């Protein structure tokens, strides 16, 4: 790939992330909000931003970061995603504990809450699976299918969560970003073909 093309792809990615984040910083709501709540909101926005980068890294689609080094960055950003989600939920808890308890118990009156909570648990489950994969000697089939399924739950849950929220993100840039994250996830899932191992095993068993 030519350096120009590589540069353009990275610039496009940076722009796609920067526009919705920059628009969110101009939200008139921020002036009315306590700092910790605003910070919790932006931790959520940053976590959402990672959901576009993660599938691109996993599938080795970013220039200069083919599959193997890409996976290392993917793993580090996965850990960052856990930290951001903890900051998001923790900051919201400090702002309004009863609302967060309701959300965690699936008893919240707001429809966006359960989607976020399910995505949160799927993120934690993925991190746990990744951390214990070697210790538990999880086979590649279990790991890849498990991670793919959890990734789909994470992206769908987070995107619906984000779209249902009336918050600091500007609605159109939020919707466009969510669409890109979903497309990147589908592209990565289809490219990586986690189910190929399943078919290989079936062929082997038949033989």
């Amino acid at each position: 790939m030519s350096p120009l093309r590589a540069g353009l792809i990275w610039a496009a990615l940076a722009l796609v992330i920067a526009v919705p984040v920059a628009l969110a910083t101009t939200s008139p709501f921020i002036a009315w909000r306590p700092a910790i709540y605003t910070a919790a909101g932006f931790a959520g926005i940053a976590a959402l931003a990672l959901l576009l980068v993660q599938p691109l890294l996993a599938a080795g689609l970013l220039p200069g970061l083919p599959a193997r080094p890409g996976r290392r960055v993917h793993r580090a950003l996965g850990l960052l995603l856990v930290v951001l989600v903890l900051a998001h939920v923790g900051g919201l808890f400090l702002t309004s504990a009863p609302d967060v308890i309701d959300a965690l118990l699936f008893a919240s009156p707001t429809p966006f809450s359960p989607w976020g909570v399910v995505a949160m648990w799927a993120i934690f489950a993925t991190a746990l699976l990744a951390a214990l994969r070697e210790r538990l000697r999880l086979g590649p089939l279990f790991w890849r299918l498990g991670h793919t399924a959890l990734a789909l739950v994470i992206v769908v849950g987070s995107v619906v969560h984000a779209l249902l929220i009336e918050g600091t993100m500007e609605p159109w840039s939020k919707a466009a970003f969510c669409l890109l994250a979903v497309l990147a996830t589908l592209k990565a899932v289809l490219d990586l073909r986690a189910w190929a191992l399943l078919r290989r095993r079936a062929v082997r068993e038949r033989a």
Partner: protein
Amino acid sequence: MTPIPSSRRAILKAGLTGAAFVAATPALILPARAQGLAPTPSMRGGSNNYMPGAPVVSRIGGGGFWMTGTVRRAGDGAPLSGIRIQIWAHTTEGREDDKHSHGATLTAADGSFRLEMPQIIPIFGQPHGHLAYEGAGFKTVFLRPIMASARDKSLSAHFVLEPA
């Protein structure tokens, strides 16, 4: 080598369970009417920033937005008059924890109440109001109704109180 049993069924099952989990949304709280009128359950998130003893006011701040509702007795559904309802929200004029964002009103003879207040703006993901009943005679109830749109100019909430 013994073949490992295919885990496809297990994976499918896990996927379906996950999908059902994702699709589960909190059930709407509707008063059951089988054995008379059931009391309105108090909402945990409703109590946030409650200020006991907020004064009865003719209007909160500059107004422009209406909070309305009714108060009835559990069982026979009789309207309750003179019941004090505290109302507060995150508005264009202040936060939920600002004293001037709070005000109380009393229900009319038909159990209805309405209080003008500043425009509610989104906070915590969706614009919402807070209402509270606390007093002698009935069990405390906190409500946290949500607005379908931030452009709405009114919001309502209904209490069915259980004698204490």
